[in-house]
């Protein structure tokens, strides 16, 4: 199910890309400096517009192949090639496009899914390999969030030590938003609200940093995956509502990989989630142990 949903979303994404990257809406051609995956454009003497057209059409074709033949490794490889070209094109106009990284690397990982999982009755080894590749793709995504969280932690400590307003400070998010909003001059509905009510932003930002740092932890605590998925999706909604930043490709990717995750237990209680939260869970466990010991002594 997860794999089919993944390639179905990509087909839809190719349509969105087709509409958003039309000839009329291309960035200024003067700023086009093709990254190395687009070497063929120069080799064939193609104009920037022609390169963009080729990439768009190729991506659409690749995603159709992917949704129809997701059970064949060469079709999945074709899809990866399409996404890679899209990412290279989007990143060739002065600024690297970060949102497509997730799809690019997970589609490469998915090439290694065992085709035999979709044939007759797969062997135990095949099932294990299939699940391992799914886990790998999920782990890559969570690793990107953890890396982002670790940088926030390290830079936050550095700025705090220097006596500066850091990501841990009550005014941290307000400063970030105040600096960013003039740069995008677009919609950020709640940005001004957070600037004028910084303590609300403070609590949110601390939670975001906690969730990002420990994102990779959910790969060994699958009961947390759905909660983390929802929070990360909310985080992306939040970055748009507060700062006007769209990281939209990551939202369907998170939903595809984690809402349909084969690792989430059938029944997960809020108690189990609480006790498996990083740091918080250990603290709760510690308190419970102390309370139990106290009761035992009391008897």
């Amino acid at each position, binding site marked *: 199910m997860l794999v089919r949903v993944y390639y179905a979303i990509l087909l839809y994404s190719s349509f969105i890309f087709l509409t958003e990257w039309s000839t009329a809406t291309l960035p200024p051609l003067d700023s086009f400096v093709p990254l190395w995956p687009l070497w063929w454009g120069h080799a064939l003497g193609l104009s920037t517009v022609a390169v963009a057209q080729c990439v768009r059409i190729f991506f659409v074709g690749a995603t159709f192949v992917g949704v129809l033949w997701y059970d064949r490794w060469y079709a999945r490889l074709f899809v990866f090639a399409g996404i890679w070209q899209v990412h290279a094109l989007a990143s060739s106009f002065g600024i690297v496009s970060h949102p497509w990284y997730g799809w690019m690397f997970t589609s490469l990982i998915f090439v290694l899914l065992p085709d035999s999982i979709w044939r007759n009755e797969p062997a135990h080894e095949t099932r294990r390999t299939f699940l391992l590749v799914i886990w790998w793709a999920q782990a890559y995504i969570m690793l990107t969030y953890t890396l982002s969280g670790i940088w926030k932690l390290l830079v936050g400590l550095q700025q705090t030590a220097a006596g500066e307003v850091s990501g841990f400070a009550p005014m941290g998010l307000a400063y970030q938003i105040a600096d960013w*909003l003039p740069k995008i*001059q677009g919609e950020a509905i709640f940005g001004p609200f957070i600037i004028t009510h910084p303590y609300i932003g403070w609590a949110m930002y601390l939670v975001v940093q906690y969730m990002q740092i420990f994102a990779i932890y959910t790969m060994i605590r699958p009961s947390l995956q759905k909660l983390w998925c929802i929070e990360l999706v909310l985080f992306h909604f939040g970055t748009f509502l507060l700062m006007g930043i769209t990281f939209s490709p990551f939202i369907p990717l998170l939903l595809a990989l984690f809402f349909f995750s084969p690792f989430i237990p059938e029944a997960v209680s809020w108690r189990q989630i609480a006790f498996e939260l990083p740091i918080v869970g250990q603290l709760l466990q510690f308190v419970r142990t102390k309370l139990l010991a106290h009761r035992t002594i009391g008897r």
Partner: protein
Amino acid sequence: MSYVALKKVVLVSLTLYAASAWYAHFFAPNENLYPLFSWNLFSYIPNEVQTYTITILSYNHTIYNPPLAFDKKLFLLSSVNRSPNEFIWEIGELGRAFEAQDTDAIKRGRTLVETLFRGMPARYEVHHATYDPLTYWKTDAFKEMRMIGVVDTSVKP
């Protein structure tokens, strides 16, 4: 590939990816080692910003007094299919070119920045500005603003 071998591949690849992120941060801060990326996004809280910006003195024969600030909902941006953030990078390049008096770099910078004017005549100033983001948001006040160049688009670079 056997399951055991694949497990090793998975762990090594994730470790290498994390290592590449660190490498990208320290050795490719401008993301010029595609597809390596550090994932260091919005970690730094800007306390005091030093940047370059432009103010528009005239556009298409209309004189603006006070001059139009680039970062104050500039109407010109709605006519060009680019985000202000991309222009900020280019304005920065132009500003650095003016500071260095690098005529080739000024020419390159002007070519990109002046796409904002879509071929219409304009005069604009390039400034080096220092500000506290929160104070600037609330009061429009810079700590320091220093003009480093004036450009008339009718004079070709």
